Each structure stands twice: as structure tokens, then as C-alpha cells.
């Protein structure tokens, strides 16, 4: 991920990459529910050319086990697919799940019993790297010693059982697998109903609802090795084995990439949020005939609220709270849909006018989310959601497309390492990540330049102080006399909490996480 630049860069994907994404840009052949970095899954893994560790875990051409597993699954699925959902859990495990575990390289024990907190826990499968560790485990004297030899635990359900149950009891499969992982001290666990295969991690903040999932039906509809790799490479034994000097498994490495991605995005967004707020403020300011200090405060306050709302919606849409795949229903009203169009405009260098079409779109979207509309699958968020600031303010004012559109692109997208403009994976950002972005903005105030100034990346300084060479270098950062910009303030807002919407924001994000 590289720093955002307003200059146009080619966003053409590399020719070798097959685009298998939904309209919202998420991968179609895996469902990454916040566990890993979406960009890493979609691009880094299939495009990696140098990293020996990744290549070893991703390239399957020379692996007989890959073809053997895929061919067995293709032929067995073809033969049994119409009856698998009629089998009970034990029958499904016998005909389908256990043969797959074996072909993924696992040695396993079934229904190990262990006492924890006065209850007997019985994970369906304790997964071992090989027979040797299985035998070593079996000779262990205690549960703790036994599970030290286990790489991961797995649980199986009958096909069609909802893996996202409700409540914190063992009747909720996602709760159950996390309990098994916690009780056995295993970081990684597998949960499956034979069709949907999930990986969970204890490292994740929202561990019950964060997972990586494959619907095997998709990869078995026709032979396509690239699609099947997302199953085989993630669920096979080798993905869980720690290796190399850093003693990390493939899953650890991919998980860390997601953590790294979230941190990088947060850092980038922290820098950009400053610029985006400045752009939004300038947009609102175009409708003021007089910019008194009171007006500037009002503009800045409402610009922060506006940014807050945009980020909340991007987060909610990315998490699937609102179905941005819904092509004919919610999708046209979504922020994702607007951002997609603006991204396209940006990539071809289209100029935006002083009309306020995007502002109108977002105002209507906010009204829709407040009220809800069952006919298009949108539940109401209630009137509290967008209650910060004066409602009247957002009705009386607007932001021209020329100011708002670049701000939306900058907020929704970032350039990846290959120079491609990609949507930021907001679902990978936790409420803490998003909340910290706001904190950085609380120390600023909106002021009008009384002379030509420049933002040299460290501080705002008079333009006239620059050498000619520096002026040439920093001409894009010039702030003209009379133009609005953000200046580091005293931090009084943070102290008084007068603009502070962080806790509201976090509550909202937690509610949807």
C-alpha cells in the first residue's frame, strides 16, 4: 500500500489476474469476513513472484496432493451432491468430511473429551501434523500435555446447519468452535457443514464473527485450480504448521498481513483524513458570503461530523450490514455504488463540476438509513445515528462535486504496491482503528490564510520563505491567500469534548461489529 496521490495513475489490473469479484469488489470464491486482508487474498497471494515462503504455500502445480484432493472432491461431489444435505452429521462426516481432512494431509482423533470449567468439551476433531505427533499426544498424561501435540481443532455440522447461531451456548456453532479453541489453547480452528468451510482465529478481536470461509460448491462447479487453491492452501495441514526462522505458519503470515494492512490503512487515513476534512470544509465554505471565526468553527465541526458519517457508512457497507451486492435494490443508493462511479471518473481524469449531485446522493442515503426501507432490505438505524450537529445545517448547505468527489475517492480507495487504485477494506478496520483517526483531527482548527502559505509535510510556513527549488517541489501544496486550511490548534476541543463524537462513533461501530 503506497501513499495516495491525486495524480492519475494507471489502475489497469495486471493481465495475469483473473477478476473474480462481486460488484462490491470482494472476492467471489472466498468469503473473508474480516480475518485477513482482502487485497492480500485477491492480489498478493496469486501474484507473488519472489517470496519463497508464499510461493511454497501457494503454488500447487507440482503437488500431487492438490490434484488428488481436487479430483476426489470433484467426482465425489458430482456423485453425492444431491444427497449430502439429507445425511445426518455422522453420515456426512463419514462420506465427505473425513475423507477430505485426510486428503488435506491431516491425521486426526475424533471426539476427544476434556474437562474445562466443570464441563466436558468434545471437539469433533483434534488435528495432528502426522502419526508421530498423534502417538506422542496419546502417550501424554494430561489434557494440556495432549493438546500440545494438536495443531488445530475442528468441528463438523450436518449440511445446511446455520454456522452463525445466536447466543453464547454450544448450540451456536461459531461460539462452540471458539470455546473448543480456547479450552484446548489452539489459535486456529475449522468449522464446517461440509459445504461452507471456515477458519477461525483466537487472535481476532471479534473472534466469533471474524472468519475466512469457502463455499466448496463454487470451487466444485467446474475444475478451476485457481479457485480451489483458496480451499486447499488454507485448509491443508501445511497452512497450520509453523516453519522457518520466525516459526510462523502460512495462516499466521496471512493473518499478520491483515493486521499490517489495517495499521497501514489507519496510518494513511490519519494523514488523509486531515486533507479530506480540509477539502470538505472548503466545500461547505463555498456557500458562505462571510467567513467569521464563528462560521469557520461551524464549518469545521460539521465537516468532522460529515467525515464521521461517511466512514461509518463505508464500515457498515463493508461489513455487509447493508447489502452492497444488491444490484437492483440497495446498491444504487449505496455509498459503495457512488464511490465505484467516482473511482472510475477519477481513473480517466474526468473533471467534476460545481453541482452537488454526490452530496444529494449521500443525503438521500443517510435519510434512507435513518428510516430504513424493508422493500429494499434496509433496516432502520434510527434517528440517533446521524444526530450529531445541526440537521438543518446539512439541509441548508452542500458541497460541490468538485470538492466532495475527490474526498470520497480519497476516503474509499488507496493505491496498492502495484500502483493500482483499490477499495480500502473497511471491514478489516476495527472500531479502535477508526476511532483513533478521529482523535488526530481534534487538535486542528480551520483558519483562513492571510498570506501565501505552504504545507511542507511537517508544518505550514510562508511561501515566501522557500527557495525557488523548494517552491517548484512543493507547488502542489501551496495554500493561496484567502484559502482555508487546517492549523494545529491548542487541543482545547479534545479537552472540552465540544466536538468529541468519538464515543458515539465507537458505540455505533461496536454495535455493527
Amino acid at each position, binding site marked *: 500500500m503506497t501513499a495516495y496521490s491525486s495524480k492519475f495513475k494507471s489502475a489497469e489490473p495486471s493481465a495475469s489476474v483473473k477478476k473474480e469479484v462481486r460488484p462490491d469488489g470482494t472476492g467471489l470464491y472466498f468469503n473473508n469476513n474480516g480475518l485477513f486482508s482482502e487485497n492480500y487474498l485477491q492480489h498478493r497471494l496469486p501474484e507473488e513472484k519472489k517470496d519463497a515462503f508464499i510461493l511454497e504455500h501457494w503454488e500447487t502445480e507440482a503437488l500431487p496432493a492438490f490434484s488428488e484432493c481436487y479430483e476426489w472432491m470433484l467426482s465425489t461431489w458430482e456423485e453425492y451432491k444431491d444427497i449430502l444435505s439429507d445425511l445426518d452429521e455422522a453420515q456426512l462426516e463419514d462420506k465427505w468430511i473425513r475423507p477430505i481432512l485426510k486428503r488435506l494431509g491431516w491425521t486426526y482423533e475424533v471426539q476427544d473429551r476434556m474437562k474445562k470449567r466443570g464441563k466436558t468439551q468434545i471437539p469433533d476433531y483434534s488435528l495432528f501434523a502426522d502419526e508421530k505427533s498423534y502417538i506422542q499426544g496419546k502417550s501424554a498424561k494430561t489434557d494440556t500435555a495432549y493438546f500440545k501435540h494438536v495443531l488445530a481443532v475442528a468441528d463438523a455440522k450436518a449440511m445446511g446447519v446455520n454456522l452463525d447461531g445466536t447466543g453464547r451456548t454450544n448450540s451456536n456453532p461459531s461460539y462452540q468452535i471458539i470455546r473448543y479453541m480456547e479450552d484446548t489453547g489452539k489459535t486456529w480452528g475449522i468449522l464446517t457443514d461440509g459445504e461452507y468451510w471456515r477458519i477461525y482465529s483466537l487472535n481476532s478481536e471479534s473472534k466469533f464473527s471474524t472468519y475466512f470461509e469457502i463455499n466448496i460448491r*463454487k470451487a466444485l462447479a467446474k475444475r478451476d485450480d485457481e479457485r480451489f487453491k483458496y480451499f486447499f492452501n488454507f485448509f491443508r495441514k501445511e497452512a497450520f504448521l509453523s516453519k522457518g526462522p520466525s516459526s510462523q505458519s502460512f495462516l499466521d503470515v496471512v493473518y499478520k498481513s491483515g493486521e499490517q494492512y489495517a495499521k497501514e490503512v489507519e496510518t494513511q487515513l490519519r494523514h488523509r483524513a486531515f486533507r479530506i476534512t480540509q477539502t470538505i470544509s472548503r466545500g461547505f465554505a463555498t456557500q458562505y458570503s462571510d467567513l467569521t471565526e464563528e462560521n469557520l468553527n461551524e464549518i469545521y465541526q460539521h465537516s468532522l461530523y460529515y467525515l464521521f458519517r461517511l466512514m461509518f457508512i463505508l464500515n457498515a457497507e463493508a461489513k455487509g450490514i447493508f447489502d452492497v451486492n444488491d444490484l437492483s435494490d440497495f446498491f444504487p443508493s449505496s455509498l459503495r455504488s457512488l464511490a465505484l462511479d467516482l473511482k472510475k471518473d477519477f481513473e480517466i481524469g474526468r473533471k467534476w463540476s460545481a453541482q452537488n449531485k454526490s452530496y444529494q446522493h449521500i443525503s438521500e442515503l443517510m435519510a434512507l438509513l435513518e428510516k430504513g426501507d424493508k422493500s429494499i432490505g434496509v433496516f432502520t438505524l434510527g434517528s440517533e445515528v446521524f444526530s450529531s450537529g445541526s440537521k438543518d445545517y446539512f439541509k441548508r448547505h452542500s458541497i460541490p462535486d468538485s470538492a466532495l468527489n475527490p474526498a470520497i475517492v480519497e476516503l474509499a480507495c488507496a493505491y496498492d504496491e502495484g500502483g493500482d487504485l483499490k477499495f480500502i477494506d473497511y471491514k478489516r478496520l476495527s472500531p479502535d482503528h477508526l476511532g483513533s483517526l478521529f482523535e488526530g483531527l481534534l487538535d486542528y482548527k480551520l483558519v483562513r490564510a492571510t498570506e501565501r502559505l505552504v504545507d511542507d509535510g511537517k508544518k505550514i510556513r510562508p511561501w515566501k520563505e522557500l527557495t525557488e527549488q523548494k517552491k517548484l517541489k512543493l507547488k502542489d501544496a501551496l495554500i493561496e491567500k484567502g484559502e482555508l486550511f487546517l492549523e494545529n490548534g491548542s487541543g482545547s476541543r479534545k479537552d472540552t469534548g465540544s466536538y468529541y463524537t468519538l464515543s458515539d462513533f465507537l458505540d455505533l461501530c461496536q454495535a455493527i461489529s
Partner: protein
Amino acid sequence: MKQLGKILWWDRRDKEGVITDSQGCEFYFNASVFPDHARLKPLEGRFVQFSLNEEVTHTKCAKSVALVPGDSVSKAKKTFESSKLSNPAESAA
């Protein structure tokens, strides 16, 4: 313009799927453009008529998806197979 396709897979939980045309091109679609989705199970291999959703350009999407009526399935099958044959390179792939 309506095209003829076959459902490659349908995800019952997420209510989304992929249609393949006789040339092997694949089109994403979901329940919102496929009111028939609850009518028959399984949906894989069923012939459908659909239009290209031109509003989405970064990935191929279908809209106005409808199952080919029972009495027209054999005709649809013939049409689908003959278009496949008229493009031998694709059929071979």
C-alpha cells in the same frame, strides 16, 4: 438483449450465483435480479435467460434472470449446445 445461459453454481445462503453462457463467459447474479430463485432446487445446471447488466463494468453481471420454462428447456439445451459447437476453441477448453 436476452441471452441464454446455464447456472454454474448457486449459493443458497448468500443467494448469489454465476451463470455461464455457451462461450464459457461467466456472469455474477443474485436473488435481487432472479425472482425465480426459490422455485426450484437445486439450481445448478438450470437454463436461464438473462440480460447483461451494463451498469456494472468492473465485473460481468447479469440482470433480469429468469428460468427457461419447462416446455422450452430441451430447445434451450439444443441452442446452448449448438452455440458451443459453433465455437470449437471454447468447447475444447
